[in-house]
């Protein structure tokens, strides 16, 4: 079988600065979506992603590299010292460009090739395997990295995520990386 190899260059362009600053949560453990924050204040200026499979059981993995070229691109983290940063990877086999709302909170993540599980995923159901990620190896040099769980996520998100618990300590002019195995969604890209 021809090995799958996809290299996706993320040249993260600036998005319009029209949105308002997101509100800061008031409760410990609460989460907000910062998509409405000024994108130039948290989006890396450069990134690269590499997904592949190997001969081992479970076989698929994803690397992410990211880089902020100047401190101003980290301004949101500086202003929100308790923030985490989670570069989610979502795989979509529908061609729609967005994960389909095909999953509910309590289904088992065993639908190869379906929706956002198409290529690979982390277990979505918090009750599945007692909430364990249980995918094998992971690593990162983000500050205080952790494996994210699906707790609190939308039902259609099967994100693969290594996050940083100390986003305020990210530095500009430095490359960071994450790598993690993920559960196999069954699909290959076909190039």
């Amino acid at each position: 079988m021809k090995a799958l190899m996809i290299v996706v260059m993320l040249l993260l362009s600036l998005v319009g600065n029209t949105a308002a600053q997101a509100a800061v949560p008031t409760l410990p453990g609460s989460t907000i979506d910062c998509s409405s924050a000024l994108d130039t204040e948290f989006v890396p200026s450069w990134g690269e992603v590499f997904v592949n499979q190997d001969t081992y059981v479970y076989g698929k993995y994803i690397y992410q590299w990211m880089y902020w070229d100047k401190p101003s691109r980290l301004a949101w983290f500086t202003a929100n010292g308790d923030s985490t940063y989670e570069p989610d990877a979502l795989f979509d086999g529908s061609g729609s460009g967005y994960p389909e709302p095909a999953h509910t909170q309590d289904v088992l993540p065993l639908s190869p090739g379906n929706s956002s599980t198409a290529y690979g995923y982390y277990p979505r159901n918090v009750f599945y395997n007692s909430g364990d990620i249980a995918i094998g190896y992971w690593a990162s040099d983000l500050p205080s990295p952790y494996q994210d769980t699906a707790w609190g996520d939308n039902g259609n998100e099967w994100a693969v995520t290594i996050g940083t618990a100390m986003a305020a300590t990210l530095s500009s002019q430095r490359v960071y990386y994450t790598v993690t195995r993920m559960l196999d969604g069954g699909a290959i890209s076909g190039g």
Partner: protein
Amino acid sequence: MRTIKALLLFFLLAIPAVALAIPPVDVRVAQAEAGFAQVLKNTPEKEVRVAVFFTNDISLQDARMALSYSPLAVKGFRHGTQFYSGGYSLKQGETLDEAVANYPRDHLFFLQKRMEMEDKMLVTATNAELRNAITTHRKEADQMKADFDKNGIRVIGVEVGGRAKDIQDFKDRNSFARVIELKENGKPQPAIVP
């Protein structure tokens, strides 16, 4: 062979802000100790999931040996320093012995893959500042590889499940066990690095 032609990989650079998610280490250690002490006092028989972080790093074999004397269910290992971190979460059906064999295999595999990919990035990077940053990162990988070649995986914590009193017993029997921190759903649990 199943092919999905329209596989799209896209990244939502979502930045959930978790208020007070990770306090300073000394505060976090104190909170962890208090939280587990309460469980131990009130419900010592209760099955809980925890991470046990160490006072110093130990070899994977030593960690495996220490765990072999306890009734705890091993869920994963943590490794790392102040500069990088990671771990290995046991897959469903994977035995502890298999995990102990697979962990260093994967660590080396992924380290070598990282070095290979960053070498390619250096060929294509045109921005001088970015190129310098990649070069620095690549050298750090060299150091990680040297550390691994010399010392293997150095474990700084384990994730286990079991009765609270058995987890406390594991800590009491192993002087390298620094703090027990309960695993809470939805709460990031980065390693407490020695």
